[in-house]
């Protein structure tokens, strides 16, 4: 079997076009709880779009221009919604036992995404160049230093914090989200727990 044939077999086994862009869903996917994931993703899209615009006009834009201030507000609220939806998404997925039937990788990548997003949001707060950023920078340094992370991550170093916020952490979040979504599309929605009287599959 050629490498191309092996690749074809892998895709057929794991992620066909029907999986990637489904036109039908199991009927048990019938609750608002299933929307938290897509709302998280849409919030992330808004965070990235507004973040790109803020990056184009520079970190001072927020402080010298009303339009810059507005885009900063959009970025701020997109981040707030992102965390609201990711918390709802993770909570509902836990209570559905969505990590069953071999879906542990999807769960773990999701948790890693949350971890990366927390640091992305944290460095965002420290990058705002306002009082909150100033205070949290000097406060957070004690926590970072106590854990030994402060030896290379200096929360009081604006250049480093801003670079991490606009480059490293968003890249990590986006890569993890892409992998997370590929796993979701590959695995399809987990089946409900057995009904009363129904045997565990």
């Amino acid at each position, binding site marked *: 079997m050629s490498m191309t044939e092996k690749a074809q077999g892998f895709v057929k*086994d*794991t992620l*066909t076009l029907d*999986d990637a*862009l*489904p*036109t*039908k*869903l*199991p*009927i*048990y996917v*019938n609750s608002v709880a299933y929307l938290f994931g*897509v*709302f998280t993703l*849409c919030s992330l*899209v*808004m965070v990235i779009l507004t973040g790109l615009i803020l990056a184009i006009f520079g970190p001072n834009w927020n*402080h010298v221009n009303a339009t810059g*201030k507005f885009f900063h*507000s*959009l970025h*701020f*609220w*997109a981040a*707030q*919604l992102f*965390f609201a939806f990711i918390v709802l998404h993770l909570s509902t997925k*836990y*209570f*559905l036992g969505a*990590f*069953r039937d071999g879906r*542990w990788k999807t769960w*773990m990548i999701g*948790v890693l995404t949350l*971890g990366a997003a927390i640091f992305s*949001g944290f460095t965002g*707060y420290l990058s705002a*160049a306002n*009082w*909150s950023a100033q*205070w949290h920078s000097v*406060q957070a340094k004690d926590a970072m*230093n*106590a*854990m*030994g992370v402060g*030896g290379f991550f*200096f929360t*009081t*170093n*604006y*250049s480093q914090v801003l670079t991490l916020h606009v480059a490293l952490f968003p890249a990590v979040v986006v890569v993890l989200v892409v992998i997370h979504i590929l796993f979701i599309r590959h695995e*399809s929605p987990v*089946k*409900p*727990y057995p*009904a009363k009287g*129904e045997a565990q599959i």
Partner: protein
Amino acid sequence: MSRRSDEYMRGVPMKPYDLIREGLIALGIVAALVIVLAIIFSSPNAPTVRGEDVAKNHPLDYLKTATDFLSGESGLESYGPPYTKDNENIQRILGPGPATVLGVTMPLDAQKDLVIAPLDKVAVLNKDVAAALKVWKSASEDQQKAWTKAYSDALDKAEEANGEVKVAAGEYGPVPIMMMGMLDLGRAGLLEGALTSNERLPYTLDNTKAMLFFQEDVDSSVANGYDMTGLQWGITHEVGNLPGPWWLWPYAIWYQIPPLTTAPNADVIVGSLMVLFFLLLFFVPFIPVLKHLPKWIGFYRIIWRDWYEKQEGAAPAAKKPGK
């Protein structure tokens, strides 16, 4: 569907679904929500604490801060890594502190870097400060400590009126002139510039020294006014009524619980707890109690209620013919 999906979904009734349409509607809803929230509530942007404002409005606090650094006995002098080699005050948990692993990666001599170095610049412009600095540098360490101790004690009893500080006469040596030099530097709005000055100017890539200058009493006092100190849920709070990073409450809550409210190694304990909780969350699919908890709680029956109504409603009906 893929072979795997086909196998898993075998026998499960399906319904039509338009992923792209749903995604676009969701994006529209979220975008509208973000725009409305941004228009109505804007975003937090309280002004920073600047040397100029502190020097003009709270000169006594400014002088106390500068004198503390000049004494060579400030908290930063004995902070430990990454600033100083002194490991006595580092936070430890079950043995050596994690801070010792990388050690001193940002060397900082608070007396020299936060006071003497800025005063060296002031001395170029002010002959009195230059003379005072010369006296200071030629004095013994004991003499320097005696001057700063006496001046620091005097500041504790000093009065502040109309932006000026009245200090009782005493044996302070060159310290009052040096501290007035620091105060003038702040009033001129040049403190942060002097602190961040480096060999790569005009680039100031690291503003750590300027951030550390007011971090103790001045910043804490401002934070207290905004309900943002560690004992007031710290980082989860934002200025005014706007939401901060509320999702960090599982972290901030530990600082509200004794003995962590006052424990000298609270940061390393809370940090370690967070690492532990993250690992628990990460390994949920494999942790016996945690992985079964959703089934025991039964919240899933609300989300999948339609499914269970059909399944459990259909089951007795299917059995009837057999009776």
